């Protein structure tokens, strides 16, 4: 059943999806319980997360094994490519929602509150005038310092851009079968990703402790942390993916003309990179 017959390849059945469903549901039910203060919440979410991790590990192990054994023909390879492209497109739209919220607040809702729409201003907060960044017109809004582009975010921009370059060098090395360069550049990329995460964590620490900039700092804090937070999460996932690919490069899984695993992760990393450029411009500079 799993053999390619007549040019088509249909994989055999798999128990990983159902394990994934159980893991994901357990985890999210657990998080829900935790948010509502239930005692079992944290345990359920942890167990669910472990099951989910087990699924991810097992599923990818199977796929990698089948790939290395040469089950995947060009058609399967193309299916994987289409799948990855449209997955990344869905991610773009997810970030779009948060960028849209930022744009809406800055160009519409905050000016309206500040009097561009006279009725809104008079009825809600008469006479209030807000600029950007703002924690909002509420009396409870505390003083805070916004996060500027200098120095950390600019350094992080350079780090991410550099990581894109090293990854491309690694790709060229892979295509030209220069293994040493490939592995070196891969680890350099992983290192750059890790440094980025470290700096981002430090930035959050600074924001929280010294700038009094928190999730609850009005619209500025909300958009700042949600945008950079989801981006940071994607960098973490991307770095883990790069790490696995670096190891697979060392294990010799890829050939100069058959390495979709490498390319898929590279696309994902470039996507993360591009999102960061959007953040750098719209969150830090403007």
């Amino acid at each position, binding site marked *: *059943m799993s053999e390619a*017959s*007549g*040019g*088509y390849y*249909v*994989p*055999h*059945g*798999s128990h*990983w*999806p*159902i394990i*994934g*469903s*159980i893991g*994901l*549901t357990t985890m*999210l*039910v657990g*998080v829900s319980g935790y*948010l*509502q203060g239930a005692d079992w919440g944290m345990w359920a979410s942890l167990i669910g997360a472990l099951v989910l991790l087990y699924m991810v590990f097992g599923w990818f192990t199977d796929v990698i094994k089948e790939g290395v054994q040469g089950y995947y023909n060009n058609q399967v390879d193309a*299916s994987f490519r*289409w*799948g990855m492209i*449209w*997955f990344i*497109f*869905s991610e773009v*739209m*997810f*970030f*779009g*929602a*948060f960028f*849209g*919220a930022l744009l*809406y*607040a800055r160009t*519409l*809702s905050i000016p*309206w509150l500040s009097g561009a729409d006279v009725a809104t201003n008079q009825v809600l*907060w008469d006479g209030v005038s807000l600029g950007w960044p703002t*924690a*909002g*017109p*509420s009396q*409870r809004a505390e003083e805070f310092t916004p996060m500027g582009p200098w120095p950390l975010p600019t350094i992080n921009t350079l780090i991410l851009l550099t990581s894109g370059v090293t990854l491309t060098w690694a790709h060229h090395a892979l295509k030209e079968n220069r293994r040493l360069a490939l592995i070196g550049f891969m680890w350099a990329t992983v290192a750059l990703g890790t440094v980025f995460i470290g700096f981002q964590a430090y930035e959050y620490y600074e924001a929280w402790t010294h700038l009094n900039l928190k*999730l*609850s*700092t*009005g*619209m*500025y*804090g*909300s*958009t700042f*942390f*949600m945008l950079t937070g989801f981006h940071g999460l994607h960098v973490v996932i991307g770095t883990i993916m790069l790490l696995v690919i670096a190891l697979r490069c060392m294990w010799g899984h890829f050939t100069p003309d058959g390495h979709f695993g490498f390319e898929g992760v590279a696309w994902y990393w470039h996507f993360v990179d591009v999102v960061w450029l959007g953040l750098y411009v719209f969150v830090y500079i403007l």
Partner: protein
Amino acid sequence: MTATTEHESEEYSGLRGFAARWLFTTNHKDIGTLYLLWSLLMFFVGGAMAMLIRAELFQPGMQVVDPYFYNQMITMHALVMIFGAVMPAFVGLANWMVPLMIGAPDMALPRMNNWSFWLLPFASLMLLSTVFLPGGGPSGGWTLYPPLSLQMGDAFPFLIFSIHILGISSIMGAINVIATVLNMRAPGMSLMRMPLFVWTWLITAYLLIAVMPVLAGGITMLLTDQYFGTTFFSAAGGGDPVLFQHIFWFFGHPEVYIMILPAFGILSEIIPTFARKPLFGYSSMVYATASIAFLSFIVWAHHMFTAGMPLAGELFFMYATMLIAVPTGVKVFNWVATMWRGAMTFETPMLFAVGNVILFTIGGFSGVMLAIAPADFQYHDTYFVVAHFHYVLVSGAVFSIIAAVYYWLPKWTGHMYNESVGKTHFWLSVIFLNVLFFPQHFLGLAGMNRRIPDYAVQFADWNMVSSLGGFGFGVSQLLFLYVIIRCMRGGKRAEARAWEGAKGLEWEVPSPAPHHTFDTPPRIETAGH
């Protein structure tokens, strides 16, 4: 091929075999069947909720349920019907039919296909469980507008995460359809030779991938507003509750087309078969579908005319919305032109398809009325809107799904269904549907609000008529269940080409379609449509 079949029957015997077949399956037909059966179950669950709603509205005053539970029922009815019944039914049809129609052995990513399905029951049960949690289920309407939606009980995060899982399931299903259509077509099956059901699903899948993540982002903001102190939807922090409406309807309006474009595809398969003529204006159908998909992204705020928008916004969204009538009109024209001077017969699928064209068009017309911003100030949140979207969703989306089931049941089961019960099902459905929803136009124009369990006595008569229609419609659907079960268990043997006028690859394979089809790619010489 024979060896494979024997091997399988061994593999699938006993309880372990049963689990291996249905839990671990990578077969598009099995997964399609699972989707269709699950959506049928959810159709009756959501339908039972509708029966409760109509029972409460049978007379003015509070009789059957308490108002808070009533509000949960209207919210859950919508969520269950949209995310549990209609969308999975279309995905099920896509799973079964798209590979057969384009000559592919299976979907492009069969294991992910399995996961897309097997997230669905878990998420649906999580969603349904909210009704039984302290504080009850969501009761502020399926649109989840803050601040109202933030005031619900313990079930709030369960609701949000269940929608997240449903979204993940839909996105993976959509990615699979796109990859299948773009990568798995048999040699000779060029894009412009594809059956329209495949075309409409390709465009639907694009819409799904574009907007489900936006909904995920919006409800994530709801979650963080509730638990982590963000103020996306609170003016006190510089946010705006209307922002949620924008995000929601940026998803919500394409979502409407996600539920109707595959229906258009189904009509474009069934009508030529029973008119025994090729589809009129094939390429204009493709372009009209693409135009509708494009326009669906720039009309969202017509759901928010009364929320407070600048005049320029009102005007833009009004005119953009009216534009949709143009490609939709092209489609209706093409279906009518396909039937024109055709050698028509009216088997059950054709009855549902023709009923669909007429009744969907009524819903389309009331949609144009609602698009007129100044008029919408009057219609907004009245029963006129309820009548409008039930005409497009029940006699549009649901009728098309029923038509598709009758049309392809012989291919799935290898048996013909009972035609006279099928026809009875159609006539009862179509009569009761109009008794149910047509009076709601009058109620709405007379000023009856939607989402209320009680109403002024002046609305009593039409509500009673509507409720009687509702009970009749609900009971009639049991006939559908009966037909399906009977057909699965036996009946007259269906030929490979179950319908005399049917064209297309799916009718080239035997009925029932073997577990594996097109192990070697067929060669397509002519268009299937």
